[in-house]
């Protein structure tokens, strides 16, 4: 087996505060091969962004500490000096962020930003950089790139700006592109366009992509492999087919159940996962982080479940592996029942209020 491009083992990111130490990323491990797309899924606060940012040394908070190992092409990133990391940033590993409205310094033109990306690592004459910038804009599908090069970020629409940011990321042909919620701030049509773009670029440039998102639909379109995170930990890992067709973890069931299906036979209640994610990593319960919201919770859940499974498809859950599909059905029914009960209670309260 060829050596993976990125090999992360037991990555931990801890934030110290007056109230104690918060483990925002808790022993995360995963691999990424050349040319692969890894979809990292989870709710806000699951640690998905923080884990990727810590790889590049982009966490500037002095109260944060990063432990564990992350090897990129054999080089250890955790603990690497900032000067060396800076060499990797933008050149071998590029990161694209969520909000295109605020991602670009508003006082400089788009051309300036692109040439800055190009000249940050190599001595490139300005004219050459400009030409390359035009090529990049054309590649990501910006019409009339010559003229648009001298436009300011606020003169672009959200979708266009995101394309520019992606172009900036790919300027130096990185081996790895990390895209942190690239489509969240965009409407659905633009979302599809940006995903198409990422797919095309991945094929043409051969870069690996880590796609961070909370949207399972986005993952299903682009990812080769999937990593589901909750409460700073990996709760399920596998290929796209494995995770979507035979999900093992109750949280993944919830995520998949909450995706609206266009082709459903009849009107179909949108399932929700009861409860909400922990407000802060300081409040994390011992044992399985998902226990407070899981329908199947039992005493063993007070211990931390190991990440285990058959072949490459692993999950962190104590429930018996033999009948996960059956348990999934029960979960759906249970959740639906709970919903009905809740609606019923709410209706009663309203009636009482009116009667009074």
């Amino acid at each position, binding site marked *: 087996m060829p050596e993976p491009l990125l090999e992360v083992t037991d990555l931990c990111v801890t934030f110290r505060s007056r109230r104690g130490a918060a483990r925002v990323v808790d022993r995360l491990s995963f691999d990424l091969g050349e040319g692969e797309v890894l979809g990292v899924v989870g709710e806000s606060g699951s640690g998905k962004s923080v884990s990727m940012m810590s790889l*590049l040394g*982009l966490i500037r908070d*002095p109260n944060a500490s990063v432990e564990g190992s992350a090897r990129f092409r054999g080089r250890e990133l955790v603990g690497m000096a900032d000067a060396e990391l*800076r*060499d*990797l*940033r*933008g*050149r071998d590993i*590029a*990161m*694209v*962020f969520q*909000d295109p409205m*605020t*991602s*670009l*310094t*508003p*006082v*400089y033109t788009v051309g300036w930003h692109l040439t*800055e*990306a190009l000249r*940050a*690592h190599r001595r490139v004459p300005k004219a050459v950089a400009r030409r390359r910038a035009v090529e990049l804009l054309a590649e990501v599908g910006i019409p009339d790139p010559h003229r648009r090069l001298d436009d*300011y970020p*606020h*003169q672009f629409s959200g979708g266009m700006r995101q394309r520019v*940011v992606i172009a*900036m990321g790919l300027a130096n042909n990185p081996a790895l592109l990390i895209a942190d919620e690239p489509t969240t701030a965009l409407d659905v049509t633009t979302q599809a366009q940006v995903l198409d773009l990422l797919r095309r670029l991945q094929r043409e440039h051969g870069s690996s992509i880590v796609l961070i998102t909370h949207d399972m639909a986005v993952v299903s379109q682009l990812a080769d492999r999937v990593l589901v995170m909750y409460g700073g930990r990996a709760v399920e890992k596998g290929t796209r087919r494995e995770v979507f067709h035979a999900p093992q973890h109750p949280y993944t069931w919830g995520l998949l159940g909450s995706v609206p299906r266009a082709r459903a036979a009849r009107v179909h209640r949108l399932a929700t996962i009861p409860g909400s994610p922990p407000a802060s990593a300081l409040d994390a319960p011992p044992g399985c982080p998902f226990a407070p919201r899981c329908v199947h919770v039992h005493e063993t859940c007070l211990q931390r479940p190991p990440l285990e499974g058959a072949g490459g498809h692993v999950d962190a859950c104590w429930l018996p592996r033999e009948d996960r599909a059956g348990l999934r059905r029960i979960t759906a029914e249970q959740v639906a029942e709970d919903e009905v009960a809740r609606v019923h209670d709410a209706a009663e309260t309203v009636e009482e209020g009116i009667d009074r």
Partner: protein
Amino acid sequence: MLSFTLRRTASAVLVLFSISVLVFLIFFATPGVDPAARIAGRNADQATLRAVQHEFGLDQPLPVRYALMMKHLFVDRDLTSFVNRGVRVIPQITQAVPTTLSLVIGAAVIWMVVGIAMGTGAAAWRGRAADPVIVVLGVLGVSIPVYWLGEVVNLLTQSRLHDGVFSWVPPLGYVGITTDPLQWALHLLFPWLTLAALYAGIYARVLRSEMLGALEEDYVRTARAKGVSERRILLKHALRCSLIPVVSLFGLDFGALVGGSALLTEVVFGLPGVGRLTYTALQNLDLPVILGTVLYAAFFVVLANAVVDLGYAALDPRVRRA
């Protein structure tokens, strides 16, 4: 853009008019102050007083009085000072302007350079030893009364250390730049430093606060992810964006100072600028001169406001479309 400029100009004219009315009301409509005597001059005889009363319509309703006063000030330009008999108001002002300009421009250069350096330094070295020092210096700059600082500087340079370290410091006063450039600079050196001390503190604080905010912005995170060096991020990204509010603030302060807000510094250092002229006029209730200097000051403030508004567009591309 054109309609914007026109509207801005109209608004500025309106403000100037309002200020002239305000000044007029303060000084001419307050009981206890006899405008006729003030305009006619000290020891004016009855005939002159009557003439003045007639010319300025002092027995007529307020609006007429106002109109006549404006006419004398701007059209006839024969308004003369109450204190310095026969000396016209407008030439007095124009003679004082170069002094004020010399003081303000020199101080401005110093305070901008020092203030920006201090503010950037404080942001760059945040959390390390230099930051609280710079913050404290900034706070002191804002808290020390400028006239007191000037007096203390005088104490040191003219008296206590005059025989030693500061023997080269000339006595208080002003020398024109065309007369003797070296003396001009020497006479202005300590006034420059005193005035700059106050404003450098203010600007360092404002810039520091803006820079710290800018360094938390998303675009700095993007630049870092591109592999840009911290120094470049500080100077080209954070500073460039933080300078926008600082420059507009500078415009307003500069305008106000040229208009005479430096009067305390001028008085303390004996510089015959517009500020000191205003102050002496106020002390002596020299109404014609007061009217002239206050309108002059207001004009510059309004001008500065307008320039800043227009200049904002040059600095911040986001505003240009509006």
